[in-house]
Protein backbone atom coordinates (compact mmCIF):
# COMPACT_ATOMS: atom_id res chain seq x y z
CA UNK A 1 0.00 0.00 0.00
CA UNK A 2 1.05 3.59 -0.26
CA UNK A 3 0.68 5.90 2.71
CA UNK A 4 1.00 9.60 1.99
CA UNK A 5 2.60 8.74 -1.33
CA UNK A 6 5.22 6.40 0.14
CA UNK A 7 5.17 2.69 -0.65
CA UNK A 8 4.88 0.61 2.53
CA UNK A 9 5.36 -3.14 2.75
CA UNK A 10 4.62 -4.95 6.00
CA UNK A 11 3.91 -8.53 6.98
CA UNK A 12 0.81 -8.26 9.17
CA UNK A 13 -1.92 -10.32 10.78
CA UNK A 14 -5.26 -10.06 8.93
CA UNK A 15 -6.93 -8.88 12.12
CA UNK A 16 -4.76 -5.76 12.43
CA UNK A 17 -6.90 -2.65 12.00
CA UNK A 18 -5.75 0.12 9.69
CA UNK A 19 -5.67 2.66 12.52
CA UNK A 20 -3.19 0.49 14.45
CA UNK A 21 -1.01 -0.13 11.39
CA UNK A 22 -0.78 3.62 10.87
CA UNK A 23 -0.11 4.48 14.49
CA UNK A 24 1.88 1.54 15.84
CA UNK A 25 3.75 0.22 12.81
CA UNK A 26 4.23 3.36 10.73
CA UNK A 27 4.32 5.72 13.73
CA UNK A 28 1.88 8.09 12.06
CA UNK A 29 0.24 9.06 15.32
CA UNK A 30 -1.58 12.06 13.90
CA UNK A 31 -4.49 9.75 13.17
CA UNK A 32 -6.26 9.31 16.49
CA UNK A 33 -7.74 6.12 17.82
CA UNK A 34 -11.02 7.06 19.48
CA UNK A 35 -14.23 5.17 20.07
CA UNK A 36 -13.25 1.99 18.18
CA UNK A 37 -16.88 1.65 17.05
CA UNK A 38 -16.95 3.84 13.89
CA UNK A 39 -18.97 6.51 15.67
CA UNK A 40 -16.53 9.28 16.58
CA UNK A 41 -14.54 9.78 13.38
CA UNK A 42 -11.25 10.70 15.10
CA UNK A 43 -9.54 7.94 13.07
CA UNK A 44 -10.75 9.22 9.69
CA UNK A 45 -8.19 8.91 6.89
CA UNK A 46 -8.56 8.79 3.13
CA UNK A 47 -8.46 5.48 1.30
CA UNK A 48 -8.33 5.75 -2.48
CA UNK A 49 -9.40 9.37 -2.10
CA UNK A 50 -12.42 8.86 0.16
CA UNK A 51 -12.65 9.52 3.92
CA UNK A 52 -13.07 6.28 5.86
CA UNK A 53 -12.99 5.38 9.54
CA UNK A 54 -9.75 3.46 9.94
CA UNK A 55 -10.90 1.66 13.11
CA UNK A 56 -13.35 -0.24 10.93
CA UNK A 57 -11.03 -1.07 8.04
CA UNK A 58 -8.68 -4.03 8.27
CA UNK A 59 -5.15 -3.00 7.32
CA UNK A 60 -5.02 -5.93 4.92
CA UNK A 61 -8.04 -4.49 3.10
CA UNK A 62 -5.90 -1.45 2.29
CA UNK A 63 -3.34 -3.66 0.52
CA UNK A 64 -2.66 -2.16 -2.90
CA UNK A 65 -4.61 1.00 -2.11
CA UNK A 66 -3.51 4.53 -1.32
CA UNK A 67 -4.00 5.94 2.15
CA UNK A 68 -3.67 9.58 3.12
CA UNK A 69 -3.38 10.73 6.71
CA UNK A 70 -3.38 14.11 8.43
CA UNK A 71 0.43 14.19 8.24
CA UNK A 72 0.12 14.66 4.48
CA UNK A 73 -1.98 17.80 4.65
CA UNK A 74 0.96 20.13 5.23
CA UNK A 75 2.70 20.90 1.95
CA UNK A 76 6.09 22.38 1.01
CA UNK A 77 4.71 25.88 1.44
CA UNK A 78 3.25 25.34 4.88
CA UNK A 79 0.02 24.23 6.44
CA UNK A 80 -2.98 23.28 4.37
CA UNK A 81 -5.62 26.01 4.41
CA UNK A 82 -7.97 23.92 6.56
CA UNK A 83 -5.21 23.50 9.15
CA UNK A 84 -4.49 27.23 9.07
CA UNK A 85 -8.19 28.07 9.38
CA UNK A 86 -8.67 25.73 12.33
CA UNK A 87 -5.84 27.67 14.03
CA UNK A 88 -7.21 31.08 13.03
CA UNK A 89 -10.80 30.32 14.08
CA UNK A 90 -10.00 28.35 17.24
CA UNK A 91 -11.47 25.27 15.56
CA UNK A 92 -9.88 22.98 18.12
CA UNK A 93 -9.79 22.82 21.88
CA UNK A 94 -8.37 19.52 23.14
CA UNK A 95 -7.51 18.53 19.55
CA UNK A 96 -8.52 14.91 19.78
CA UNK A 97 -11.13 15.02 17.01
CA UNK A 98 -9.09 17.44 14.90
CA UNK A 99 -7.25 14.99 12.58
CA UNK A 100 -10.54 13.43 11.50
CA UNK A 101 -12.22 16.82 11.20
CA UNK A 102 -9.37 18.08 9.02
CA UNK A 103 -9.43 15.09 6.68
CA UNK A 104 -13.20 15.31 6.25
CA UNK A 105 -13.06 19.09 5.80
CA UNK A 106 -10.32 18.83 3.16
CA UNK A 107 -12.37 16.32 1.19
CA UNK A 108 -15.52 18.44 1.46
CA UNK A 109 -13.76 21.53 0.08
CA UNK A 110 -12.08 19.54 -2.70
CA UNK A 111 -15.52 18.35 -3.85
CA UNK A 112 -17.54 21.44 -2.99
CA UNK A 113 -15.39 24.61 -2.69
CA UNK A 114 -18.30 26.78 -1.53
CA UNK A 115 -20.44 24.70 0.85
CA UNK A 116 -23.31 26.11 2.87
CA UNK A 117 -23.15 25.83 6.65
CA UNK A 118 -25.75 23.05 6.39
CA UNK A 119 -23.51 21.15 3.98
CA UNK A 120 -20.54 21.63 6.31
CA UNK A 121 -22.53 20.30 9.26
CA UNK A 122 -23.73 17.37 7.19
CA UNK A 123 -20.17 16.57 6.08
CA UNK A 124 -18.85 16.44 9.66
CA UNK A 125 -21.89 14.66 11.08
CA UNK A 126 -19.83 11.49 11.38
CA UNK A 127 -17.32 13.19 13.67
CA UNK A 128 -17.78 13.84 17.36
CA UNK A 129 -16.11 16.76 19.16
CA UNK A 130 -16.34 16.05 22.86
CA UNK A 131 -15.38 19.64 23.64
CA UNK A 132 -18.60 20.42 21.70
CA UNK A 133 -16.73 23.05 19.73
CA UNK A 134 -18.77 22.54 16.60
CA UNK A 135 -19.55 26.19 16.07
CA UNK A 136 -15.90 27.11 15.63
CA UNK A 137 -15.21 24.00 13.56
CA UNK A 138 -17.93 25.03 11.12
CA UNK A 139 -16.57 28.59 11.16
CA UNK A 140 -13.07 27.27 10.46
CA UNK A 141 -14.22 25.25 7.46
CA UNK A 142 -16.18 28.27 6.20
CA UNK A 143 -13.04 30.40 6.68
CA UNK A 144 -10.95 27.89 4.73
CA UNK A 145 -13.48 27.89 1.89
CA UNK A 146 -13.47 31.69 1.75
CA UNK A 147 -9.66 31.87 1.92
CA UNK A 148 -9.28 29.37 -0.90
CA UNK A 149 -11.89 31.23 -2.99
CA UNK A 150 -9.95 34.47 -2.43
CA UNK A 151 -6.74 32.66 -3.41
CA UNK A 152 -8.35 31.58 -6.66
CA UNK A 153 -9.55 35.13 -7.31
CA UNK A 154 -13.23 34.22 -6.94
CA UNK A 155 -15.39 37.06 -5.68
Amino acid at each position, binding site marked *: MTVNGVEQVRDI*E*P*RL*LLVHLLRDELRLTGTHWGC*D*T*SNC*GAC*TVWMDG*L*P*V*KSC*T*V*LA*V*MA*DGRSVRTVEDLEGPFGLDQVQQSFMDCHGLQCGFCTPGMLM*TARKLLDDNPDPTDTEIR*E*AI*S*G*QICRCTGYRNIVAAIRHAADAEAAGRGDT
Partner: protein
Amino acid sequence: MQVPAFFEYQRATSVAHVVTLLERFGPEARIVAGGHSLIPMMKLRLAQPELLVDVNDLHELAGITVEDGVLRIGALTRHAELLASPLAGEHFPILHDAERVIADPVVRNRGTIGGSVCQADPSEDLSGVFTALRAVAVVRGVDGDRTVPMREFFHGPYETAVRPAEILVELRVPLQPGAGSAYVKVDRRVGDWAVAAAGAVVSLGPGGVVEQVGIGLTAVGDADFTAVEAEDLLRGRVADEYTFAAAGEAAATHCRPVADQRGPVDYKRHLAGELTVRALRDATARAHRGGSTE
Protein backbone atom coordinates in the same frame (compact mmCIF):
# COMPACT_ATOMS: atom_id res chain seq x y z
CA MET B 1 -8.61 -2.20 22.57
CA GLN B 2 -11.12 -4.10 20.45
CA VAL B 3 -9.41 -6.58 18.14
CA PRO B 4 -11.06 -9.41 16.24
CA ALA B 5 -10.10 -13.02 16.93
CA PHE B 6 -7.77 -14.80 14.50
CA PHE B 7 -9.05 -15.47 11.00
CA GLU B 8 -7.74 -16.11 7.54
CA TYR B 9 -8.15 -13.56 4.80
CA GLN B 10 -8.53 -13.98 1.06
CA ARG B 11 -9.19 -11.34 -1.53
CA ALA B 12 -11.62 -12.66 -4.12
CA THR B 13 -10.77 -12.20 -7.80
CA SER B 14 -14.24 -13.05 -9.17
CA VAL B 15 -17.72 -13.95 -7.95
CA ALA B 16 -17.00 -17.56 -8.95
CA HIS B 17 -13.91 -17.42 -6.73
CA VAL B 18 -16.09 -16.23 -3.82
CA VAL B 19 -18.48 -19.14 -4.28
CA THR B 20 -15.58 -21.61 -4.45
CA LEU B 21 -14.10 -20.28 -1.21
CA LEU B 22 -17.48 -20.33 0.54
CA GLU B 23 -18.03 -23.91 -0.62
CA ARG B 24 -14.65 -24.99 0.70
CA PHE B 25 -14.87 -23.30 4.11
CA GLY B 26 -18.60 -23.74 4.77
CA PRO B 27 -20.51 -21.58 7.24
CA GLU B 28 -17.32 -20.46 9.00
CA ALA B 29 -16.48 -18.25 6.03
CA ARG B 30 -17.95 -14.77 5.79
CA ILE B 31 -17.96 -12.23 2.99
CA VAL B 32 -16.62 -8.78 3.85
CA ALA B 33 -17.37 -5.72 1.73
CA GLY B 34 -17.63 -2.41 3.61
CA GLY B 35 -17.19 -4.28 6.87
CA HIS B 36 -19.12 -1.70 8.88
CA SER B 37 -21.45 -4.30 10.36
CA LEU B 38 -19.18 -7.35 10.37
CA ILE B 39 -15.94 -5.83 11.70
CA PRO B 40 -17.63 -4.28 14.78
CA MET B 41 -19.29 -7.66 15.44
CA MET B 42 -15.92 -9.40 15.09
CA LYS B 43 -14.36 -6.96 17.54
CA LEU B 44 -17.04 -7.87 20.08
CA ARG B 45 -16.63 -11.59 19.22
CA LEU B 46 -20.31 -11.71 18.24
CA ALA B 47 -18.96 -13.03 14.95
CA GLN B 48 -15.86 -15.23 14.72
CA PRO B 49 -15.45 -16.32 11.12
CA GLU B 50 -12.49 -18.53 10.25
CA LEU B 51 -12.16 -17.00 6.81
CA LEU B 52 -12.96 -13.55 5.51
CA VAL B 53 -13.52 -13.27 1.77
CA ASP B 54 -12.89 -9.68 0.68
CA VAL B 55 -15.07 -8.77 -2.31
CA ASN B 56 -14.01 -5.13 -2.63
CA ASP B 57 -12.17 -5.73 -5.92
CA LEU B 58 -15.21 -7.24 -7.67
CA HIS B 59 -16.30 -4.38 -9.88
CA GLU B 60 -18.82 -6.74 -11.52
CA LEU B 61 -20.83 -6.37 -8.28
CA ALA B 62 -20.89 -2.57 -8.42
CA GLY B 63 -22.92 -0.06 -10.35
CA ILE B 64 -26.44 1.26 -10.79
CA THR B 65 -28.15 0.83 -14.16
CA VAL B 66 -31.60 0.72 -15.73
CA GLU B 67 -32.19 -2.15 -18.13
CA ASP B 68 -35.45 -3.50 -19.53
CA GLY B 69 -37.61 -1.57 -17.10
CA VAL B 70 -35.61 -2.60 -14.04
CA LEU B 71 -33.36 -0.53 -11.80
CA ARG B 72 -30.38 -2.74 -11.02
CA ILE B 73 -28.25 -1.99 -7.97
CA GLY B 74 -25.06 -4.02 -7.58
CA ALA B 75 -24.51 -5.48 -4.12
CA LEU B 76 -21.14 -3.72 -3.79
CA THR B 77 -22.67 -0.28 -4.43
CA ARG B 78 -21.67 2.01 -1.56
CA HIS B 79 -24.34 3.94 0.31
CA ALA B 80 -22.70 7.17 -0.85
CA GLU B 81 -22.96 6.02 -4.48
CA LEU B 82 -26.67 5.24 -4.18
CA LEU B 83 -27.26 8.62 -2.54
CA ALA B 84 -25.33 10.37 -5.34
CA SER B 85 -27.04 8.44 -8.15
CA PRO B 86 -29.39 10.65 -10.21
CA LEU B 87 -30.78 7.48 -11.81
CA ALA B 88 -31.85 6.06 -8.44
CA GLY B 89 -33.26 9.38 -7.25
CA GLU B 90 -35.16 10.01 -10.47
CA HIS B 91 -37.01 6.71 -10.38
CA PHE B 92 -37.30 6.15 -6.65
CA PRO B 93 -36.83 9.19 -4.37
CA ILE B 94 -37.37 6.79 -1.43
CA LEU B 95 -33.81 5.55 -2.00
CA HIS B 96 -32.38 9.03 -1.48
CA ASP B 97 -34.70 9.76 1.44
CA ALA B 98 -33.38 6.65 3.19
CA GLU B 99 -29.72 7.06 2.28
CA ARG B 100 -29.68 10.60 3.67
CA VAL B 101 -30.46 9.19 7.13
CA ILE B 102 -28.29 6.06 7.09
CA ALA B 103 -25.27 6.39 9.38
CA ASP B 104 -23.04 9.36 8.44
CA PRO B 105 -21.25 10.46 5.26
CA VAL B 106 -17.93 8.81 6.17
CA VAL B 107 -19.56 5.46 6.98
CA ARG B 108 -21.62 5.77 3.79
CA ASN B 109 -18.37 5.97 1.79
CA ARG B 110 -17.61 2.44 2.86
CA GLY B 111 -20.79 0.55 3.73
CA THR B 112 -22.52 -1.31 0.90
CA ILE B 113 -26.12 -1.93 -0.09
CA GLY B 114 -25.60 -5.70 -0.22
CA GLY B 115 -23.91 -5.75 3.15
CA SER B 116 -26.74 -3.82 4.75
CA VAL B 117 -29.53 -6.09 3.54
CA CYS B 118 -27.53 -9.28 4.21
CA GLN B 119 -26.81 -8.12 7.75
CA ALA B 120 -30.62 -8.13 8.22
CA ASP B 121 -30.49 -5.98 11.31
CA PRO B 122 -34.10 -5.45 12.47
CA SER B 123 -33.44 -1.70 12.37
CA GLU B 124 -31.86 -1.62 8.93
CA ASP B 125 -33.41 1.17 6.85
CA LEU B 126 -32.91 -0.37 3.40
CA SER B 127 -34.78 -3.53 4.40
CA GLY B 128 -38.02 -1.57 4.74
CA VAL B 129 -37.21 0.35 1.57
CA PHE B 130 -36.67 -2.68 -0.65
CA THR B 131 -39.73 -4.50 0.68
CA ALA B 132 -41.84 -1.39 -0.02
CA LEU B 133 -40.38 -1.33 -3.54
CA ARG B 134 -41.03 -5.06 -4.06
CA ALA B 135 -37.43 -5.48 -5.12
CA VAL B 136 -35.95 -8.82 -6.05
CA ALA B 137 -32.59 -10.10 -4.81
CA VAL B 138 -30.31 -12.01 -7.17
CA VAL B 139 -28.25 -14.59 -5.31
CA ARG B 140 -25.44 -16.62 -6.88
CA GLY B 141 -24.23 -20.04 -5.79
CA VAL B 142 -22.43 -22.98 -7.30
CA ASP B 143 -25.52 -23.81 -9.38
CA GLY B 144 -25.83 -20.31 -10.81
CA ASP B 145 -28.24 -17.47 -10.06
CA ARG B 146 -31.60 -17.60 -8.33
CA THR B 147 -33.96 -14.79 -7.44
CA VAL B 148 -35.63 -14.10 -4.11
CA PRO B 149 -38.34 -11.45 -3.66
CA MET B 150 -37.24 -9.08 -0.89
CA ARG B 151 -40.52 -9.82 0.87
CA GLU B 152 -39.27 -13.40 1.31
CA PHE B 153 -35.62 -12.47 1.86
CA PHE B 154 -35.63 -11.92 5.63
CA HIS B 155 -35.91 -15.03 7.78
CA GLY B 156 -35.60 -13.23 11.11
CA PRO B 157 -33.07 -10.98 12.83
CA TYR B 158 -29.67 -11.39 11.13
CA GLU B 159 -30.97 -14.27 8.99
CA THR B 160 -31.70 -14.15 5.28
CA ALA B 161 -32.48 -16.39 2.34
CA VAL B 162 -28.81 -16.27 1.30
CA ARG B 163 -27.33 -19.71 2.02
CA PRO B 164 -23.80 -20.28 3.36
CA ALA B 165 -22.23 -20.88 -0.06
CA GLU B 166 -24.08 -18.08 -1.83
CA ILE B 167 -23.50 -14.39 -2.45
CA LEU B 168 -25.99 -11.61 -3.07
CA VAL B 169 -25.01 -10.06 -6.41
CA GLU B 170 -27.65 -7.42 -7.05
CA LEU B 171 -31.03 -5.97 -6.20
CA ARG B 172 -33.55 -5.45 -8.98
CA VAL B 173 -36.33 -2.92 -8.61
CA PRO B 174 -39.03 -3.02 -11.29
CA LEU B 175 -39.66 0.53 -12.53
CA GLN B 176 -43.11 1.84 -11.64
CA PRO B 177 -43.74 4.82 -13.95
CA GLY B 178 -45.73 7.55 -12.23
CA ALA B 179 -45.42 6.00 -8.78
CA GLY B 180 -44.40 8.24 -5.89
CA SER B 181 -42.18 7.03 -3.06
CA ALA B 182 -40.89 8.34 0.25
CA TYR B 183 -39.13 7.27 3.45
CA VAL B 184 -39.39 8.87 6.88
CA LYS B 185 -37.49 7.94 10.02
CA VAL B 186 -37.32 8.94 13.66
CA ASP B 187 -33.94 8.49 15.30
CA ARG B 188 -32.48 9.73 18.55
CA ARG B 189 -29.62 11.59 16.92
CA VAL B 190 -28.16 12.07 13.45
CA GLY B 191 -26.98 8.82 11.92
CA ASP B 192 -28.41 6.54 14.58
CA TRP B 193 -30.46 3.42 14.02
CA ALA B 194 -34.18 4.08 13.66
CA VAL B 195 -36.50 4.14 16.65
CA ALA B 196 -38.99 3.46 13.87
CA ALA B 197 -39.21 4.24 10.17
CA ALA B 198 -41.64 3.77 7.31
CA GLY B 199 -41.35 3.75 3.53
CA ALA B 200 -44.18 3.98 1.03
CA VAL B 201 -44.50 3.51 -2.73
CA VAL B 202 -47.83 4.64 -4.20
CA SER B 203 -49.30 4.26 -7.72
CA LEU B 204 -52.47 6.23 -8.38
CA GLY B 205 -55.21 5.51 -10.90
CA PRO B 206 -58.04 7.69 -12.20
CA GLY B 207 -59.70 9.77 -9.51
CA GLY B 208 -56.72 9.50 -7.19
CA VAL B 209 -57.51 5.90 -6.34
CA VAL B 210 -54.62 3.80 -5.02
CA GLU B 211 -53.83 1.17 -7.66
CA GLN B 212 -50.75 -0.34 -6.07
CA VAL B 213 -48.97 0.40 -2.82
CA GLY B 214 -45.97 -0.90 -0.92
CA ILE B 215 -45.34 -0.07 2.73
CA GLY B 216 -42.11 -1.01 4.48
CA LEU B 217 -41.63 -0.75 8.22
CA THR B 218 -38.26 -0.72 9.95
CA ALA B 219 -37.42 -1.44 13.62
CA VAL B 220 -40.96 -2.28 14.76
CA GLY B 221 -40.76 -6.05 14.81
CA ASP B 222 -42.14 -7.01 11.42
CA ALA B 223 -39.99 -9.95 10.41
CA ASP B 224 -40.54 -9.22 6.73
CA PHE B 225 -40.42 -5.41 7.16
CA THR B 226 -43.83 -5.05 5.46
CA ALA B 227 -47.19 -3.62 6.57
CA VAL B 228 -49.40 -5.94 4.51
CA GLU B 229 -52.65 -5.10 6.33
CA ALA B 230 -52.20 -1.40 5.64
CA GLU B 231 -51.44 -2.13 1.98
CA ASP B 232 -54.61 -4.25 1.62
CA LEU B 233 -56.68 -1.52 3.18
CA LEU B 234 -55.36 1.15 0.81
CA ARG B 235 -55.76 -0.60 -2.53
CA GLY B 236 -58.82 0.66 -4.43
CA ARG B 237 -59.48 3.57 -2.06
CA VAL B 238 -58.96 7.27 -2.72
CA ALA B 239 -55.55 8.41 -1.45
CA ASP B 240 -56.62 11.03 1.07
CA GLU B 241 -55.97 11.84 4.72
CA TYR B 242 -58.83 9.62 5.93
CA THR B 243 -57.44 6.63 4.11
CA PHE B 244 -53.90 7.36 5.29
CA ALA B 245 -55.10 7.55 8.91
CA ALA B 246 -56.82 4.18 8.57
CA ALA B 247 -53.67 2.68 7.00
CA GLY B 248 -51.54 4.13 9.79
CA GLU B 249 -53.84 2.56 12.37
CA ALA B 250 -53.58 -0.80 10.62
CA ALA B 251 -49.78 -0.57 10.52
CA ALA B 252 -49.64 0.37 14.20
CA THR B 253 -52.02 -2.41 15.22
CA HIS B 254 -50.23 -5.18 13.38
CA CYS B 255 -46.58 -4.33 14.08
CA ARG B 256 -44.81 -6.02 16.96
CA PRO B 257 -42.22 -3.66 18.42
CA VAL B 258 -40.16 -4.58 21.46
CA ALA B 259 -39.06 -2.20 24.20
CA ASP B 260 -35.35 -1.38 24.19
CA GLN B 261 -33.02 1.56 24.82
CA ARG B 262 -34.58 3.36 21.86
CA GLY B 263 -38.05 3.44 23.35
CA PRO B 264 -41.05 1.64 24.86
CA VAL B 265 -43.57 -0.39 22.88
CA ASP B 266 -46.41 2.16 22.89
CA TYR B 267 -44.13 4.91 21.59
CA LYS B 268 -42.82 2.72 18.77
CA ARG B 269 -46.34 1.64 17.89
CA HIS B 270 -47.40 5.27 17.76
CA LEU B 271 -44.43 6.03 15.49
CA ALA B 272 -45.24 3.11 13.17
CA GLY B 273 -48.72 4.57 12.63
CA GLU B 274 -47.68 8.20 12.32
CA LEU B 275 -44.68 7.51 10.07
CA THR B 276 -46.82 5.31 7.80
CA VAL B 277 -49.19 8.27 7.40
CA ARG B 278 -46.34 10.68 6.66
CA ALA B 279 -44.65 8.34 4.18
CA LEU B 280 -47.97 7.79 2.39
CA ARG B 281 -48.63 11.53 2.33
CA ASP B 282 -45.20 12.31 0.83
CA ALA B 283 -45.29 9.42 -1.63
CA THR B 284 -48.78 10.41 -2.82
CA ALA B 285 -47.75 14.05 -3.27
CA ARG B 286 -44.85 12.84 -5.41
CA ALA B 287 -47.14 10.54 -7.38
CA HIS B 288 -49.36 13.55 -8.17
CA ARG B 289 -46.24 15.20 -9.60
CA GLY B 290 -45.44 12.18 -11.74
CA GLY B 291 -43.17 10.53 -9.20
CA SER B 292 -40.51 13.20 -8.92
CA THR B 293 -39.41 15.20 -5.91
CA GLU B 294 -39.73 18.51 -7.80
